[in-house]
């Protein structure tokens, strides 16, 4: 049974994703790290599906679908952002201040 090690791997990948989100300034790379986090969560679900049945696979299914939708919309936002500022550097995007 690979449950334990799978969960551990998921933990590592998730933390790496978090690190990436914190470290990078490029919006698209940050987005990719978020996708990495989602993948780690998917791994957890699949690992636990061995114990708890098909609902694990169903969750993974839905996560992937939503991730795809989210990727599309998010990238569209980044495009719009780029057109406005000619840059996707997160340092420069601070109009939410105050």
């Amino acid at each position, binding site marked *: 049974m690979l449950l334990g090690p799978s969960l551990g791997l998921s933990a590592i990948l998730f933390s790496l994703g*978090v690190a990436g*989100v*914190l470290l990078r*300034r490029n919006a698209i790379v940050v987005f990719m790290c978020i996708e990495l986090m989602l993948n780690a969560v998917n791994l957890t679900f699949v690992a636990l599906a061995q114990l708890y049945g098909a609902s694990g696979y169903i969750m993974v299914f839905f996560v992937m679908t939503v991730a795809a939708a989210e990727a599309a919309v998010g990238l569209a936002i980044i495009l719009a952002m780029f057109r406005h500022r000619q840059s996707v550097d*997160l*340092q420069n*995007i*601070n*109009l*939410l*201040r*105050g």
Partner: protein
Amino acid sequence: MSFSHWVWLAVALPLGGFLVNGALALRRPDAKGLVSLVGPGVLLGAFGVSVGVFRELLGNPPHEPLIVPIWPWLSVGQLSVDLAFQVDQLSAVMLLVVTGVGSLIHLFSVGYMREDPGYARYFSYLNLFIVFMLVLVLGSSFPVMFIGWEGVGLCSYLLIGFWFSDKANADAGKKAFIMNRIGDFGFLVAMYFIWRAFGTLNFTDVMARAPLTLAPGGVIVTAITLFLFLGCTGKSAQIPLYTWLPDAMAGPTPVSALIHAATMVTAGVYLVARTNVLFAMAPLSSTVVAGIGALTALFAATIGLRQYDIKRVLAYSTVSQLGYMFLGVGTGAYAAGVFHLVTHAFFKALLFLGSGSVIHAMHHAFHSTHSHDDAQDMRNMGGLRRHLPWTFGLMMLATLAITGMPPLSGFYSKDEILAAAFARGGDTPIFYLFYAMGVAAALLTAFYMARLMALTFLGENRTGEQERGLLHEAPWIMTGPLVVLGVLSLVGGALNLPHFVGGNAAMERWLEPVMEPGMRLNHLVMPEGSTDLLLGGVAVAIGVLGLVLGFRATLGRPTLPARQAPADTGLALVLNRKYYVDELYDGLFVRPVEWISRMVLWKGVDQTIVDGVAVNGAARVSRGLGWLGGRLQSGQVGVYVVVFLVGALWVLRAVLR
């Protein structure tokens, strides 16, 4: 229900007078006719009630005081104080004096204040004063008495500063109130101690429990009585809190007569008489009372020798006579002190009102010729007996009374006090000193009164050519009360004729149920027979000597009008400047307090601490916190993510535990 239950009416009537006159003062200040009716009218009504109460008590003298409850006032924890009046022999006497002399002075004021624009306001204040004075003498417990105590202080302030547009008058009012306040502090501390010692503040309960609960001569009872006496020195103008009374002459003369001669200043004597048991149980305090009384009597008499303002002389005379009263009650002769209180009310009120009559005439004269000379300076008077014969005659009568000439009332009361002091010297030798001081003060009293009469009424007139023809006697509304007071000064001695002239000490026996608990603890043995006669003779001789010396000294050398008179020098200057006591107080107390107020309290506390630290500091802290909070909202996504993750970590930790 006995008539005494209506005693509250004596308070309610002047209170109604205050409200009506006050309303008139605010709405229709020129309704002088109505005010003249209401003002003295309510007083005469109150006097009628007092007479009724007295007659009822006369027919059936009670052994226990009658308590007339008005309103349940305080009920806090174990302390229960009712607003109630106490009717007994002592309060009946005070009631008669206050309402009787008060009525006469109200009638006098109708004439005296006739042209004053503040007529209605004057009568409203005067009525209010009577209300508070009656509460003071009728109160059945310390707090109720204190209401009256404070109230008369307030009315004193209002009336002294009646013509407040002149700053000096307002300052005099403030001085009186503030010095009274210092005394009030003593009263309050004493009240606290009494509450702690006895658990009650009613007079009857305190006097009953005192001999049982406290050790005679012990620390507690001495402390209580000394603090009470501090209140008395403030209210009754004894050393060290007497300096307000001469300044209080800035008020209208009838006010000086009523408040600063007959009634308010006697509140201290009344207090000691009322709490006679406590003072009898504390021989040290009684000695202090008598000593300060004697010292004040002598001290004030010396100052009076060299004053030129007629009212000032009378003011210092009042301080001196109050000293006599305290000498009396300090010795343990409570009835004698009260007796002198009554007779002093008669002749001092007469003297003040008489001087009011003189000032009224002088003022008229100077006003008509637009002269700026001082209407109250005796150096501008002289020979007025030709112009104001009635005033002269009655004031002469009062002078003889105050110097203790028999058969006028002053002789009996003063003699009894001096006899008591002499008798007390038997077991407490220091009282012989007090007796000597009292005799010396009597000599000086006669001297300065003779000087006053000589400067004002005898000799040649110094008022001025034009004014002389305008001097005239006061109208009957003013001279009438003078006559009544003159009669009382003459026959007032009958109230308490001593044994050696064949009398039966009526007042003393009348007041016995009230004074007896204290007197029992005192064991004062009054002199009898030949000693009594001898002491009386000494008093008369001293009085005659003083009068003769006074007249001869004053009339012997020529006096110049005030603006031509040379300045005083040497001892005369010191006396005229009242031993510079006011300057001493100013330097010792007033300036340091002002300095502390300005430097420490204003600059230090208010500006630095309250403004700087508390108010501005709070603002700065808020701004700082706001700045910190603002940094969180930087608009940087990175920062938001960090905060978000930190929060998520925390939640996770909580869940995993």
